[in-house]
């Protein structure tokens, strides 16, 4: 059983989620620019 403190420590905060989706979108732009638009 995880303690509440451990939960808070592990909990992905909103900033981390924003960073995650931003990285995904940047990668999407790169990949689609290089190849996606041409396939």
């Amino acid at each position, binding site marked *: 059983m995880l303690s509440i403190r451990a939960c808070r420590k592990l909990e992905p905060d909103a900033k981390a*989620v924003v960073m995650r989706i931003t990285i*995904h*979108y940047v990668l*999407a732009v*790169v990949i*689609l620019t290089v*190849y*996606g*638009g041409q396939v």
Partner: protein
Amino acid sequence: MAELPPVKLGVNILAAYGTILILRRPLENRCVTSARAESQPIRQFIFDLLSGLSAGLLAALLNAVFFGFPPGSLLSLIYGSVTYSFFIALDMSLARERTVILEALARNSVQAPPQRLYSMTRRFTLVAVATALCVTVVNLLVIARDMSWLTTVGTDPGAIKAAILSVTYEVLFIMAVLLGLAINLIISYSRNLKLLFENETGVLERVTNGDLSQMVPVATRDEFGLIAGHTNTMIEGLRHRIELITALQLAEEVQRTLLPAAPPKVPGLDLSGTSIYCNETGGDYYDYILLPEGRMGIVVADVSGHGIDAALFMASARAFLLSGAERYQSPARLAGDVNRCVTRDGDPTGRFMSMFFLEIDSTAKTLRWVRAGHEPALVYSPGSANFQQLGGDGIAMGVLKNAEYKDYYRQGWEPGSVVVVGTDGITETRNAAGEFFGAERVRHIVSTNASRPAADIQTAVIDAVQRFRGEAPQEDDVTLVVVKLM
């Protein structure tokens, strides 16, 4: 199309994804995070898939307007966008699920099994099939485009070499992207599984160590949620059983107080008695009652059955007996009074009770008794080394309201005579082979220990009964009172 500089192509795609990224946060709050916790992961998946589709459509629209993209390239761009969005949606959905799990762990509130189950295996199959289809279609499109392009390369060895190198880089790039996405999903899913396993095993370890204070938060609607819910049901059941056991132990303590803590000191008599219950509570009872004119009353009773219901019946019968003893006249009158009360109370339950009541007048050296369906008492005379039964007629109590009881009388005894009154739990004790302890063994132990104090005789009989039973379970309560007449 192929000649379009990457920077120009990227501007429109960047503009499309940037727009969606800006709009994403408020829309996500409205569509995903405001929903119930258990439906947030699936909503997150749909939301990100649609966001990716919207970005792809917007990018295609911009490219069509500004660069005049042909329909085939537009569809390719949209398909590429949707495929990548599929992986984004999976990753974000797993992240959302992780958030939901952690919140549930922190709150520790939801504990019932999920009403509707979304099978983990079914979800896994769907995701695996969809992933395989996406990857296959991407590869087919790339191969088709490359094959078409290679036909235009010509026969120049330099151009062919450059084309082969270009295709190789392309394949490696696609493989690297797909591998990266797959690894990311595996890590994300593993983290969720780790959380769920730790959640379950942590509580089960506590339960194993006897700590039932923690429940497992039900964080998902899959098999993990089901296991967590059932674990909580099990913990509730264990808590309830422990409460019952505690209540039974308390009942045992209360019932122990109904039995005499120690025999009274009566001139001319050496008394000893004990009851050993087969459950926490029992239906056997014995007592010493001081009667008028210095006489001593010995009562041994046995309620049918054993356990908490028999104990309650015994407690009420004891109250009737002690109340009747206040107006004591004779054993038979007392038995009649108690029988009327017990019959009234016991009639709906069908319970009954056997009783042996012995009145000892150590001054006049007389024994007077009544037998209500109970085992006869034994009197051992050491001088003649023989046993006599204190028998007689009398029906068990609680059967007939107006049953009549009869006093039986005996005058005189040899000094050192031993009176033994017990319940059938002694003679009917069985060993592992199914043999009964029997009355003969009781007589033998009493005769060989007759010169010892009453407490020693009682201990000798009880020890012999327990040794005889061995590993076999105790099937009935055992009660024995020994009186040594001086």
